[in-house]
């Protein structure tokens, strides 16, 4: 009876509808919010409720095995995914249950992928910042021995020794590999797009450029060493060898990005130029390349960002130096990646490794900063200097 009265009081307000309602519906209407469309659906508060519950359970389970944020997160995630998808299966059926399980797993995978990124960036910032100062930036490791590090730990004085030589080496070697690979890479891309016309040679080059992308960096380093060993004797280790090794890694990236950019230059531009009687090479240098230059520049910047952090090829080609060497054609050279590697694997003072670790993290921060600036710079170049679209 109560249902009937609520029905009357509900429909009582608009007077015109009263007779129709009374005539038609002797049986009680479905309870509010649970009409036939919402049947077999979880109420809106169910999923947040399960999330809160599994957070509590996860925290409890984590406390049992020694509390830590990591185990709590893991337990909570497992309990939530299981509970939420089982509830969905029970209420909404197995198809929707599977769907929600897949959704939670996909979201979870994305969050999981962010964990190492956040952890690496946080660690580098946290441990690198204390080591960055003017002394670190503008001094080399020349004359810094284990005794110096021991003294600075015992007396609590600031850490002596810096990465200036490594920064110089990184910039010079990267500069030389850019000088080698940009002309070769751009000319190859021009051949592929403007001259090759999908002939057998062009297809072979495209294929092997793709294959070259997959050469392990250490093999590129070994190749450069072997090449210079044949030419100049087995102990030839200097900056230019490293630059050649990095070029092997850099050329394919430059070719691919330049090729993509040249391909999207509209054919009308070329045809207009030919129609004015301009020769092909003038058309390419004066019309095609200027149109695509923003994309090419950003591709080259990304290629530089890729090779600037390479360690393995430097390790086998440029050796290791503690002093500043600005001559890429003679003597060993240090770079930031090899500096980081050697500071960690062979600390300057084996008994007090903290100064070395601090220098390694500071150098890592410097290197990550360079890479990020190059990456953002590439995006900026691409968006700022992009050619105006015709339509």
């Amino acid at each position, binding site marked *: 009876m109560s249902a009937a009265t609520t029905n009357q009081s509900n429909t009582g307000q608009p007077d015109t509808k009263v007779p129709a309602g009374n005539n038609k519906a002797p049986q009680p209407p479905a309870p509010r919010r649970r009409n036939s469309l919402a049947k077999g659906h979880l109420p809106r508060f169910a999923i947040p409720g399960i999330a809160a519950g599994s957070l509590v359970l996860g925290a409890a389970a984590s406390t049992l095995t020694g509390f830590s944020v990591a185990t709590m997160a893991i337990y909570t995630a497992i309990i939530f995914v299981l509970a939420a998808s089982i509830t969905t299966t029970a209420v909404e059926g197995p198809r929707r249950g599977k769907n929600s399980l897949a959704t939670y797993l996909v979201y979870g995978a994305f969050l999981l992928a962010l964990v190492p990124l956040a952890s690496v960036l946080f660690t580098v910032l946290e441990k690198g910042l204390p080591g960055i100062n003017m002394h670190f930036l503008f001094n080399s490791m020349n004359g810094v021995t284990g005794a110096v590090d021991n003294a600075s730990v015992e007396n609590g004085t600031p850490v002596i020794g810096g990465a200036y030589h490594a920064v110089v080496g990184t910039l010079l070697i990267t500069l030389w590999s850019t000088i080698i690979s940009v002309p070769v890479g751009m000319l190859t891309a021009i051949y592929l797009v403007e001259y090759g016309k999908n002939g057998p040679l062009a297809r072979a080059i495209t294929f092997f450029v793709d294959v070259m992308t997959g050469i392990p960096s250490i093999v590129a380093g070994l190749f450069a060493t072997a090449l210079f060993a044949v030419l100049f004797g087995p102990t030839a280790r200097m900056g230019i060898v490293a630059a050649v090794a990095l070029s092997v890694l850099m050329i394919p990236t430059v*070719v691919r990005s330049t090729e993509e950019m040249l391909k999207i230059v509209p054919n009308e531009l070329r045809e207009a130029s030919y129609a004015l009687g301009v020769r092909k090479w003038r058309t390419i240098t004066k019309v095609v390349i200027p149109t695509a230059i923003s994309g090419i520049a950003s591709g080259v910047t990304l290629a530089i960002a890729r090779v600037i*952090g390479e360690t393995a090829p430097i390790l086998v080609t440029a050796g290791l130096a503690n002093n500043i060497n600005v001559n890429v054609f003679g003597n060993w050279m240090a770079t930031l990646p090899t500096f980081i590697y050697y500071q960690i694997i062979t600390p300057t003072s084996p008994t007090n490794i903290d100064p070395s670790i601090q220098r390694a993290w500071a150098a890592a921060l410097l*290197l990550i900063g360079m890479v990020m600036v190059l*990456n953002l710079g590439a995006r900026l170049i691409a968006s700022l200097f992009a050619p105006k679209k015709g339509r």
Partner: protein
Amino acid sequence: MTTNALRRQGSKGQAGDKIFSGAALGAGILILITLFAVAIFLLIQALPTFSANPALITGGEGFVSYIFPIVIGTVIAAGIALLIATPVGIAVALFISHYAPRKLAAGLGYVIDLLAAIPSVIYGAWGYLVLAPALVPAYQWLAENLGFIPIFAGPASQTGKTILTAGIVLAVMVLPIITSLSREIFLQTPKLHEEAALALGATRWEMINMSVLPFARPGIVSAVMLGLGRALGETMAVALVLSTGGLIPSLIKSGNQTIAAEIALNFPEAFGLRLSELIAAGLVLFVITLAVNLIARAIIARHKEFSGAN
């Protein structure tokens, strides 16, 4: 007079044309030569190893028994990396292509690409100083509770510098490769297939399972192969993270070695026959990664022909 002037100008331009097209052709051929030179110079420098007295090779039993354990170690490390990175990478790619809000998708893709931008030596340092110590309790738990399985046989490493840690670091490094390649392929799925599935009442997962994944399968396979190529050749992460040793089945004890790390760790002090040995190891690595990459590229190329019909 006028015809002369015209001809003179014409011939001048022709020379420029010829020089330019010649330079472009030369650069293209230079790349082919470089790739073959990589193989040939490595072979020249590695030759002494193959002809040397087997007793003089490290280990004293010839090159094959020297290289075999570290090839297996390389495969184990890369296998762990792929086992972790493949499901996560595909799920992340699906998240970006089909789950994330449209406006956020491009930005999230860029965040994942940042993972690829971080230099490998920094991953190595992170694995060495942060991840390895953090995993020690997990390894001890594994050794205590699952120690009867040979791959989790104890006692667990006290430093966490094991091949499993190296594999996890490698997984982080190959994840962006798998993600970005599969994302591109997921986005190429014909919209009509997806909409047809949804119109028949499929849930989102059924739509993905019925239209996106079958379409993308060859692409996923080649993305995983390219990730494998990267994981096989990655040096610094393993050189820093792994505490090396002989070939052992347990993944949570120090031991095992990979080719790339073997070269990086020993090259600076090597000379003579040892140098040639390491270069020979590099040649083996080159051949393995080349084969993996060739297969991956062949799958992509075949896939392209078929998908062009849509």
